[in-house]
Structures are given as C-alpha cells and as structure tokens.
C-alpha cells in the first residue's frame, strides 16, 4: 500500500496510520511521524512571537510528482511493505497536522529510517513555501520560513549524489 497525497483540508494522521497498519498485515511494525503547527512561540531562532497561523503554498506541477518520486526512492532504499505520505497545503492553525509519514516494514529499522529519510527531504523540498502569521506589537505580520543550516545537514546525511530535489 502506497498512499501519497497533497491535501487542502484538515486530516486525521492517526487514521492514516491505522489504515496503513490494517492494509499491511505482514508488517512487523509501523513507524509514523506527524508534523504539526507549533502552538505558542515561533522558532526561537526567529524570535519569540506567537504563531497565529501557518500557510503552505506550493508549485503544483512539482508537488505530487515530487512526493511520488520521493516515495519510490524510499521504497528502493528501504525494505518497505507500505508507505503513506500526506502533506497539507493552505492555511493551518496551531495544533493542525501539516504532514504525516507512516512506513510499514518487516523490521523496525527500515520503517524508522524511511520516515526519517522522507521527512528530511520534505523539509527541503523545492516545491513548498511556508510562512507564519506572527502576532506582533503592531499587529500580525507574515514571515517566510527559510531552510536552516540544520535542514541541509539533515539531508546530506543520506549521502545521495545528484539526487532530485
């Protein structure tokens, strides 16, 4: 079971993981990561303002093909029985899930590593733009979120040469 989708409405990541588990009875484990909009302070490196909303925009011709290509690469690299990648676009609010990556595998390391691999690539994917609406003393203002050095270091761990972005 491979379920790769871009979503423009709220979703239940736990249901997605449950569906994957039900569809992969041969799996020895399901590894799942859910990224959500941080409630409270923005990234400490970006300041201490409260995040009121997050907006994810994307370049549609690349988004779903890029996510499918990422899933194919994860399946080639790790011994997977199933993989779910769900990613929101549009305006989200604190607590809303942004992304869910769930991998079913016979042995735990493949599933955990596949989720880690997919998340590192999604964080640096060239087709998403993320900005936060932060409360300020002069009213809420939008702030674009640029990749951090840590994001580049994370993706470099996988040792891919000339990998698609």
């Amino acid at each position, binding site marked *: 079971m491979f379920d790769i989708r871009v979503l423009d409405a709220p979703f239940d990541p736990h249901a997605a993981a449950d569906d994957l588990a039900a569809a992969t009875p041969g799996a020895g484990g399901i590894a799942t990561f859910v990224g959500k909009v941080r409630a409270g302070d923005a990234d400490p490196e970006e300041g201490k303002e409260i995040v009121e909303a997050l907006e994810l925009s994307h370049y549609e*011709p*690349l988004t779903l*093909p*890029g996510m499918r290509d990422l899933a194919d690469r994860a399946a080639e690299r790790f011994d997977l029985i199933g993989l779910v990648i769900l990613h929101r676009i549009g305006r989200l609010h604190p607590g809303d899930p942004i992304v869910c990556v769930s991998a079913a595998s016979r042995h735990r390391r493949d599933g955990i590593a596949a989720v880690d691999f997919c998340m590192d690539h*999604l*964080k640096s994917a*060239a087709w998403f733009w993320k900005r936060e609406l932060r409360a300020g003393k002069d009213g809420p203002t939008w702030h674009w979120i640029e990749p951090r050095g840590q994001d580049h270091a994370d993706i470099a761990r996988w040792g891919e040469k000339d990998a*698609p972005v």
Partner: protein
Amino acid sequence: MESCEAPAPLDWAGLLQIVTPSVAQQLRDEQVYVACAGRVLADKTALNAQDGDEVALLPPVSGG
C-alpha cells in the same frame, strides 16, 4: 506568483537577461532552484527550455 513569456529556446544566460537584476542576483544563489517542464534541474545553468516549457524559479523554502 508572477509569470511572463519569453521566446524559446531559453538557456541560463537568456534567463538571467530577462529577469530583473535583483532576481538575477538571487538566481545565482545555490539555494535557489530552477524547474523546467515539471522537473527541478540538478544543474540550473544547463537550462534548455523549449517552446511551451514552463520555467519556474523556486526560492529557498522549508516544508514539512
């Protein structure tokens, strides 16, 4: 998102000429990617857009 049309074929030097100087400067940043016909170019300086291709300039981003 802004868009414009340019005569084909369009290569890297041609792209730098049709955008504003500030955009051209940003395009040279290694964190800025270029996509052509639905694929991100591993080497953006090898751009070779043909008639009908959509060329996208992709700024530094953070998803997930």
